[in-house]
Structure formats: structure tokens, C-alpha cells
């Protein structure tokens, strides 16, 4: 479980996160939702220590992350798999080298063991036999799947995803959502997905935090979301005509 308590973050005079507290639960797909600019990505980057913050506490299964020295933080980060918005694959490495990279850096596995692990991860994301392709030869959906394969190669305890569906067609987006949910349940890891895609929310939202103007305005799951009375949440969720119709029919 990842806990955040009373997080405050300012960029200059601009208060981006104001007293944010939330528990991201193990074995569940935890979603941070909100409009663009609401503070979602900032919160995610604070969680992994890429941004410093002004006040508050972050703990990974009871280990206080913000009190750790850089070397200790690096050890925690080895337990985190991160799926970036653009995939962030190393563009001079092949698919296989990308997935093998964390194994080479942090394990003493033999080359054979590493290749076995790479093939296992590629199979898990339905990309068998694509080992020798460069990222430039992959489609958007394939890039995301290779990035997921890389992020699970080290058996992470935590999986963080920043807008995993952005730029993908609806069918591939559903595939990625399903994959994230399956991996979360299969390995019993704490997954946090940062999204403003309502299809994802309805598909995989076990535990949802709605951020508005840097504050958590609502918490719940996908079933509760439909009937929530919060006006800001309502305006965000039912911005599209399709979801308005869904609500009317429900």
C-alpha cells in the first residue's frame, strides 16, 4: 500500500497540491482522475521522488519515502515499475535490450535467465518474437506494451502508470487497461493509474481519487462514481454526451 498524507506542493506562488491525502491499496487498480492541470501528474511525480514537495508524508508499505536518503530512495525505486505517457523506451536499444536493461543493472542473472525473463514478459503483453525491433519500428500500442513488459521485468511491488491510454485507439486502450488490471491482480501489486479517460475509469477503477484544483474532492469506486452527487466530479465525468446518456439510463 502507498499512503500519502497532507501533501502540499507549490510551484513558485502557484499552489498545485493542497493537503492531499489518499491510500493506494494493494491488489487494486487505484486511479487518480481529474482535468488537465488539476495536479495528477505532479502527484505521481512526487510519489516517485522526481519532484520535491513542501509538506506531507509518503510511505511505501510503512517505509517513509520522504525521510529517506537518495541511496535508500533508489532501492525503493527498484521496486517500482513505471509506465510513462510516451513509453520512455530507450530509443537506441531494441525491445529485448529495453526489457533486459533493469535485469542487467540490478541482478546477477545469467544471459540465458535474462532472455527467459524477457520472453516471459513479452509473452505476458502478447508481443512474442518482437525482441529485435527498435522502438522506432513499433506502433503506439506496442510501445506501451513493451513499456509494461519492462516495468514488470523486475517483479515490482508497485506499478505507476501516467495516462497509459493517451494517443491510443479505443480498442488498444481497452487492451492496455485489461493488461494493467490483470497484472495488478495476478501479482497482487499496488497499481496507480493517472488518467482522464472515462472509459478506463469505468473499466478498471477499483479505488478512485478525483483531484480538482489540487485537492482531493471525491474518493470511491467506479460503481459509486456514477451516483456521486459532487458537482465538480459530475461536471468532469459527465462532460461527454455518451456518459450523460448512460447516467440517464442507469
Amino acid at each position, binding site marked *: 500500500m502507498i499512503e500519502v498524507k497532507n501533501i502540499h506542493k507549490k510551484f513558485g506562488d502557484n499552489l498545485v497540491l493542497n493537503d492531499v491525502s489518499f491510500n493506494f491499496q494493494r491488489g487494486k487498480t487505484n486511479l487518480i482522475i481529474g482535468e488537465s492541470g488539476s495536479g495528477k501528474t505532479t502527484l505521481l511525480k512526487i510519489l516517485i521522488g*522526481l519532484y520535491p514537495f513542501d509538506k506531507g508524508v509518503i510511505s511505501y508499505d510503512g517505509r517513509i519515502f520522504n525521510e529517506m536518503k537518495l541511496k535508500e530512495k*533508489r532501492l*525503493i525505486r*527498484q521496486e517500482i515499475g513505471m509506465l*510513462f*505517457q510516451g513509453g*520512455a523506451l530507450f530509443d537506441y536499444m531494441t525491445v529485448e535490450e529495453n526489457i533486459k536493461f533493469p535485469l*542487467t*543493472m540490478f541482478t546477477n542473472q545469467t544471459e540465458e535467465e535474462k532472455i527467459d525473463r524477457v520472453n516471459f514478459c513479452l509473452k505476458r503483453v502478447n508481443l512474442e518474437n518482437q525482441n529485435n525491433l527498435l522502438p522506432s519500428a513499433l506502433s503506439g500500442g506496442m510501445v506501451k506494451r513493451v513499456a509494461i513488459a519492462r516495468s514488470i521485468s523486475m517483479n515490482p511491488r508497485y506499478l505507476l502508470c501516467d495516462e497509459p491510454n493517451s494517443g491510443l485507439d479505443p480498442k488498444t486502450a481497452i487492451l492496455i487497461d485489461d493488461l494493467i488490471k490483470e497484472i495488478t491482480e495476478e501479482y497482487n501489486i499496488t497499481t496507480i493509474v493517472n488518467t482522464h479517460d472515462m472509459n478506463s475509469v469505468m473499466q478498471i477503477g477499483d479505488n478512485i481519487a478525483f483531484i480538482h484544483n489540487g485537492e482531493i474532492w471525491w474518493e470511491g469506486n467506479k460503481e459509486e462514481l456514477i451516483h456521486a452527487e459532487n458537482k465538480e466530479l459530475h461536471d468532469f465525468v459527465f462532460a461527454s454526451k455518451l456518459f450523460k446518456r448512460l447516467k440517464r439510463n442507469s
Partner: protein
Amino acid sequence: MIKGLQNIGDYFIMMNKVMSRPEKRSVFLKQFNLEIMKIILSSIGIVIIISFFIGAVVAIQQYFNLSSPLFPDYTIGLVTRDAVILEFAPTMLGLILAGKVGSSITSEIGTMRVTEQIDALEIMGINSASFLILPKILVSVIFFPILIILSISIGIIGGWLGGLSVGVPTSQFILGIQYEFIPFYVTYSLIKSIVFAFIITSVSAYYGYHASGGAINVGKASTKAVVYSSIIILIFNYILTDLILSGISF
């Protein structure tokens, strides 16, 4: 002024991160070999072409400037040798490589920054500054002097052929390049090349590592890297010349 001081502070903070022990020796050696290809081997062509023609032009110019019975023909060889060893090879080539190698380092690291590849390294628990920048600095500092020796040799060959084209006999040219040769000039040239190599790679890496936004900003960072490394090279050229040459009596 404040911005400038902040940049200097950030540069030293980054260099503190760069100068740490590599996490995995085998991966470091792989990166080191890759950088030899990217930085040194890819520069050999331009070094040969520029050195040859500058050497030839220096010889021809000196021939016409010194066309007096008071100056024997071997003066052309002597002047070409000293011009190439003292100033052209280390400084001019330093400026040229600041353009070629510097802009390439900034674009490479800057692109990795804006596509979140550097964040991905950090999330894996890797010291991204050391992983990306240390091999570049070491390769440059170790191998730039070899490029300078190559440049001196080709420059003198260019001078010989340039001299031949205007009628300076080979025997006179060879006498000139041997006449009152001071071996310490080569040491002085190599000392300068090591300092310039460090300036080019570290300053360019700094601008790439701190790039933000998109492609336009990476382009701007590359331009800044070339401009500032060139200025710093010229300042250090003056300081080193004053320190090394003025303090020694021949």
C-alpha cells in the same frame, strides 16, 4: 546575474552526481565503447579534412607574408609547425568539436530528458547523470588528445603540400619543422586539449540534462551549449596560455 549564478550552482550539483562510481562495471564499459564510436571515431573525418586544409593555407599565407630575402624558405615550415601545435590543433579544433560533439551531446541528452527516458532511468534507481554523462566525459578527456596529435600531424602534412604548391622545397620545409623544436609545446597543446574536452562534454551535457519542453527547447539548449562552451574554451585558452607559457623560460 542571478540566473547565471544559479546555472553555475546547478552545473556543480550535476557534476557532483556525475562523479560517482558506476553502478555496474560491465554496463559502464559498454557505454564507454559506445561513446568512443559516437564521439571520437565519428570525428576523425572532419578532423583530418579541416586540419589538412588549415595547415596548407597557413603555409601558403606565410609564404606570401614572408616573401623576403631576409626570411629563408624553412621559416614556412617553422611557422606552420608552431601555429598548428600551439593554437590551431588544440583551440580551433576545440571550437569546431564544441559545435560537432557538443551539439550532438546536448541533443541526445536533451531528447532523452523531454521524452522522459531520463526519468525512466531515475525510477529504475539508476543515477542517470553518472550513467549518461560520465562515459562521455572520460572518453573525451582520454581520446581528445589523440585527435589533437592526429590533427597536428595532418596539419603539418597539409602545410608541406601547401608549401610545395608555392615552391617551398621539401628539404626546406622539413628543416623548418625541425628547427628549434620545443617538445614542451606538444605537452602544452595536449594539456589544453584535455581541459577543452572536459569543458565541451560537461557544459553540453549540462544543457541537455536541464532541457525542458519539446523539440524547440532542445534546439535552443544545443545552441546555448555550443555558444557557452566556445566562450569558456576561449577564456580557458587565455588562462592556460598565460599560466603555462609565461611561467616557463625556454
